[in-house]
């Protein structure tokens, strides 16, 4: 399986996402923001960072980059897409996911290992987890508070589209939401960083690897 990792100017966790892809047994394929080309990949990761410096609003400029012009229709057609942190912000700005990410309660950048519960195991990126499974994954963001209008939040709850929830949201996220998916479950965005939790040597746990093995296993199953 070939999984694309997009590098925008200011992407920071692209090498980490590529490493996680390798650990999950797939081939990472670098994708460049300025190319209208997905290079035939089987899934795409939008990594963390500060795309275009995030000087306007997180993800607001990246959304208009040439690679997104290819990615948005592909995602609507079912291509598995995972947005991590800044990638989540970009997916919201691109309207592939509902809601928005706003300044943390407390207004400071927060780096913390957070406990998450997997709320939906039917997505392309969480099928390898058990329902309710607890994960310990780093959160590191300044604008990570998930926000949406009450009707949207109700709908996300009703349809089971909350993918991961904080045990204790440190950033003021609405209803403790750490990550959500689109209706089809192929597009997932979350603020915590599963790619930083693939090995207890360099992260708080190996709990995050499941996001990547989920998509790899599903692909292997579909392929074979």
């Amino acid at each position, binding site marked *: 399986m070939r999984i694309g990792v997009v590098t925008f100017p*200011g992407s920071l966790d692209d090498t*980490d996402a590529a*490493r996680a892809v390798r650990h999950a047994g797939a081939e990472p394929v670098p994708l460049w923001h300025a190319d209208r080309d997905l290079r035939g990949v089987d899934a795409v990761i939008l990594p963390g960072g500060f795309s275009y*410096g995030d000087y306007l609003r997180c993800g607001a400029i990246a959304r208009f980059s040439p690679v997104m012009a290819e990615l948005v229709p592909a995602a609507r057609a079912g291509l598995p897409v995972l947005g991590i942190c800044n990638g989540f912000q970009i997916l919201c700005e691109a309207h592939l996911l509902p809601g928005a990410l706003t300044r943390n309660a407390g207004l400071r950048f*927060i*780096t913390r290992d957070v406990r998450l519960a997997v709320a939906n195991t039917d997505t392309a990126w969480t099928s390898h987890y058990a329902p309710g499974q607890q994960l310990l994954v780093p959160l*590191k963001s300044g604008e990570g508070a998930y926000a949406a209008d009450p009707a949207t939040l109700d709908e996300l709850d009703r349809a089971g589209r909350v993918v991961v929830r904080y045990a204790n949201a440190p950033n003021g996220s609405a209803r403790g939401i750490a990550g959500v998916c689109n209706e089809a479950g192929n597009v997932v965005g979350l603020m915590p960083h599963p790619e930083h939790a693939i090995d207890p040597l360099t992260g708080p746990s190996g709990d995050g690897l499941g996001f990547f093995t989920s998509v790899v296993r599903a692909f292997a199953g579909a392929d074979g």
Partner: protein
Amino acid sequence: MSDKDTVQVATASPDQPQPFAELGLTPAEYAKIKDILGRRPTAAELALYSVMWSEHCSYKSSKVHLKRLAPNEEQARKLLAGIGANAGVVDIGQGYAVTFKIESHNHPSFVEPHQGAATGVGGIVRDILAMGARPVAVMDALRFGPAEAHDTARVLPGVFSGISFYGNCLGLPNIGGELAFDPCYAGNPLVNALCVGIMRHADLKAAVANGPGNKVVLFGSRTGPDGVGGASVLASATFGGGDGKARAKRPSVQVGDPFMEKLLVECCLELYAEGLIEGIQDLGAAGIACATTELAAGGEGGMRVTLDDVPLRDPSLTPAEILMSESQERMMAVVAPDRVPAFLGVCAKWDVEATVIGEVTGDGTLTMTWRGGTVVSIPPRTAADGPVYQRPMARPADLDSLQATAPDGLDRPKDGPALLATLLALLGSADEADKSWVTAQYDRYVRGNTVLAMPEDGGLLRVDEQTQLGIALATDGNGRYCRLDPYRGTQLALSEAYRNVAMTGATPAAVTNCLNFGSPEDPQVMWQLAEAVRGLADGCAALGIPVTGGNVSLYNQTGDAAIHPTPVIGVLGVHDDVRRRLAAGFATDGAQVVLLGATREEFGGSAWAHVVHQHLGGRPPAPDLHAERTLATLVATAASDGVLASAHDLSTGGLAIALAEACLRGARGCRVTLPGDPFTALFSESAARAVISVTPGREDEFAALCAAHGVPATVLGQTGGDTLAIEASFEVPLPELRRAWEGTLPALFG
């Protein structure tokens, strides 16, 4: 200064008054410039010499002392490049080299804390980048006035937000550092930033302009009026405190753009990989003036620069201002003419503006033209080398009485409850308290190779995912020790950084330093500087590791009052297998707790004397570099054999603080019995000590290792339970300790 002050005009008007004093030059220095040129300098030349001959760029007061730090044969064996290059380069084996350096941004951070600290990170990162290395991590050593002081509440949050903003957005993990408080830093905080980079041996780059006809390319941000004269004005002036002087100097502080820096890093690394450059120099203090003179002075020939071609943010800048501007996120490269199109192509890919502004010549002269006239024509080495001063030195007049005022007579805790109260007071003091409030604002995970970060004794990074080769880093300094005895104090800072690196299981390999002192025009300060450098040189020779470079920051004083002499020492270690790393916290129940090293009654400059009695006097603890070396070898050996479950060095606050931290970080108690006088056992700050826990079942093996290495080992007790229990003294529940430890910084700074 006139815009049109060309060489021709200068030659024709030898007696025109020039503002050399305002630019920080002495009458003698001004006369020397006229002597070199055989005429008065143009306005642009005067600006160039003033920044190049500033204390910050020329090291004119410290150079005669820094010579002591040249590596001897044993020390030189680990080096690829030594002092004098942008940063020293250390061979760590397997074809990898590491470059690391620590630099001060003290004065800008006092004037404008957020931007001052942010651009401090940016500057040191470009320094490492210019060596050909990929920057992989940063650390910060920070010192402020009293934690509860009004101005600390202005400076400290700004410094943290600046480091957090710049470092996080740049994508470099912040893996540790220091945070300390003392009244001597109230009007002059210390903001020292360290960066470390990794490269293959063949990737080493040089700051030289060779090959006549090669092009000089300026790339990165545009040049603006920010930071004009920062090196000469800010870093040479003393601050008047709250009298408004600081505000008047605000324009001298630069403004940082970490996004541009990230693009510049990736752009440079791609230029290196494609083999498109002949020489490279970062732009920091003294901007284009420094980059052009150093490149030209490092090469064989000369250089011709057309200042009209420098892209400007403000078209009204004069040549002098263009030369002195310290606009951030700029680099200068020397490029072969046939590679210029490819060079510009890589820059365009990364949206980095790049402009050919000149070329290398064979005439040995640095020439700059502007609007058709020649505004600079100098021999570049005369600006790059700068004057050298043998400043007068004098042992501080109060040192004898200070050393005679030993803390021996101070009231000591006499029973268990009093010992516990002392521990809680120290643990909750701003210096010893948990620093999570700070480090929670830094990204330590980015790039995915951080094995250990704050609050561990040293930061540890994986260098190679296949071989598990890694590097460890720590910085340490102690102004109070150095005030009492700069020679000893510097060796203690070196010892502590060395010990911190050793506690991860790494083998210390190299040293960098940032020497923060008062005014060099004060003979007592110069004596402190000389003693500190002598201590560092002797200490490094005894440890067998080289100093690979460093930075000197002088004029750190408020009015006539200098800060404590504060050399901050960074030590780099090599870890053969990062999977064998040790952490400070007790990791398992039922593990034997052992104190390594010898404890003497040493309280001069101690945390106890400072926190409980606000006392500073006597002599600091005696350094024992031989003991440091054997302790480090023992821990490295035991770590690679898997004999140890945890290791934590003893420093300020002694065994009491070390045990409390080991319990809190491991979320696991311990029960210990102290040898001898409990107060001395708990709070003495004797050097070359550590508290470790042994992997259960390997106790005899470890005891044999200690005996073989000649390291004194005292079995104290066992890990386990949820209290810190000191037999015959006190037993305290960990939650109570944790409240004292974790509550302080949030209560002070929200």
